[in-house]
């Protein structure tokens, strides 16, 4: 650990990131440009989230990393070990025990407390980017609060598919002002964006940081006759039986067999430890997983 500065980044870089985080919190949903650094991992592996975590962590923190809800994927394990090594922080897989949670594409099922911080890894921070490729133009659109293009996109969804087909990275409006990409979380998670914890978003390749203070008003875009609906697979978890959690669908053989399981592994494991069993699950004691 002594080979690195605390939390890997040098102090001047951390100050620059910290100033961007403060302006992000002061202007919720606005994307603050920052001088993203090269990190010892490729772009697309969470370099934005890692830089925000490095600027936020203290040695007293307990750190958790999830990748689409799971603590045990390669990306989550390597980022967790990175800060274990460079910041000396305690790590956990339990949502309730973590003080800082870095996430890729999910919000934990369990409600976060006011003393918890959620750091998102963001690939494309600009919600209008796929509709308008020019940064000059999208910046102007945010300045003028000109968001008609996104409503046309959602309308075209309805006219072509009969429904709003956007299922993840579903655009939201923050405090009635800025349109924001909540990162590619499923739209099932959108209602949880109004929470007690502090939410920070880091996009490394795109060099943007944005934030949501606790209890910030976040509204998913919709139409009066096509109201926003947070959807999930119409099924219960086959391992823990939960009917309210977001599910992954897993193909289990080449005969078309499939099962549904919670995407949030800590939530699922906690429920199984409490004795809940799904239709394909085994009672906790015999469950090697």
């Amino acid at each position, binding site marked *: 650990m002594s080979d690195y*500065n*605390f*939390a890997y980044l040098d*102090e*001047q870089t*951390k*100050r*620059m990131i*910290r*100033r*961007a*985080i*403060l*302006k*992000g*919190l*002061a*202007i*919720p949903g*606005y994307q*603050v*440009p920052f001088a993203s650094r090269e990190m010892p991992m490729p772009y697309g592996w969470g370099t934005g989230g890692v830089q925000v975590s490095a*600027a*936020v*962590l*203290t*040695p*007293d923190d307990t750190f958790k990393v999830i990748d689409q809800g799971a603590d045990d994927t390669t990306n989550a394990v390597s980022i967790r070990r990175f800060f274990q090594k460079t910041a000396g922080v305690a790590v956990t897989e339990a949502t309730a025990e973590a003080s800082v949670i870095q996430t890729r594409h999910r919000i934990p099922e369990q409600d976060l407390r*006011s003393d918890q911080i959620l750091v998102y890894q963001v690939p494309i921070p600009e919600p209008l980017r796929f509709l308008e490729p020019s940064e000059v133009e999208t*910046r*102007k659109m*945010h*300045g*003028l609060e000109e968001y008609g293009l996104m409503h046309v996109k959602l309308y075209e969804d309805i006219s072509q598919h009969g429904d709003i087909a956007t299922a993840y990275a579903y655009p939201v409006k923050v*405090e009635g*002002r*800025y349109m924001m990409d909540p990162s590619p979380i499923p739209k099932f998670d959108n209602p949880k964006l109004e929470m*007690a914890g*502090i939410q920070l978003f880091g996009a490394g390749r795109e060099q943007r940081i944005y*934030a*949501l*203070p*606790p*209890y*910030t*008003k976040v509204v998913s875009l919709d139409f009066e006759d096509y109201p926003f609906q947070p959807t999930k697979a119409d099924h219960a978890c086959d391992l823990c039986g939960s009917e309210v959690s977001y599910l992954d669908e897993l193909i289990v053989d080449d005969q078309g067999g499939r099962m549904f399981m919670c995407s949030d592994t800590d939530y699922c494991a906690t429920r199984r430890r409490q004795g809940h069993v799904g239709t394909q699950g085994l009672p906790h004691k015999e469950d090697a997983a």
Partner: protein
Amino acid sequence: MEAHILEGGFANIPIDAAHAFRAVMTAMARPGEIFEISGAQPPAPLSVAAGAVVLTLCDPETPLFLAGGFDTPQIRDWVTFHTGAPFVGAADAMFAIGVWESIPFPDLARGTSEYPDRSATLIVEMDALTNTGAVLEGPGIKDQNYLSLPETALFQENARLYPLGLDFIFTNGGNLAALPRTTRVS
């Protein structure tokens, strides 16, 4: 330069700055709540809290404006030695430090419609900081919060400029509270 100017910085820079930033960030995310911050021993009249904020956020990239009685050789030397921040007039400042009455508010940067983040952050030294007085509402506040603000009119005008505007950090001794431009004050 006097020898004591060299003292009073963070003892363990990465760790002290991490704790100090967590306090500043939580304060900015939860407007009106008062937090402790420590680690700095700046020359008077700069408080421990204001000194720690400067050490945490300022460096050669952040032009700094010292208002009124805070523009002293001791403070200039201390800030220069520990942060390297350049001193500028109010109009060019990214950070401004002073007591409420001495700050030239009209001169400070509010940002632009395309870059509202290019605005000044004020570090305001207070005689007292308590959760009484003005009512605060807005992002970061569940229902309502209270803070002993010097006035309300300027904050109401500031909030009307949203998304442009100034952001405030209030300091007193080892305590700080923050008030971003989003907070509605009454």
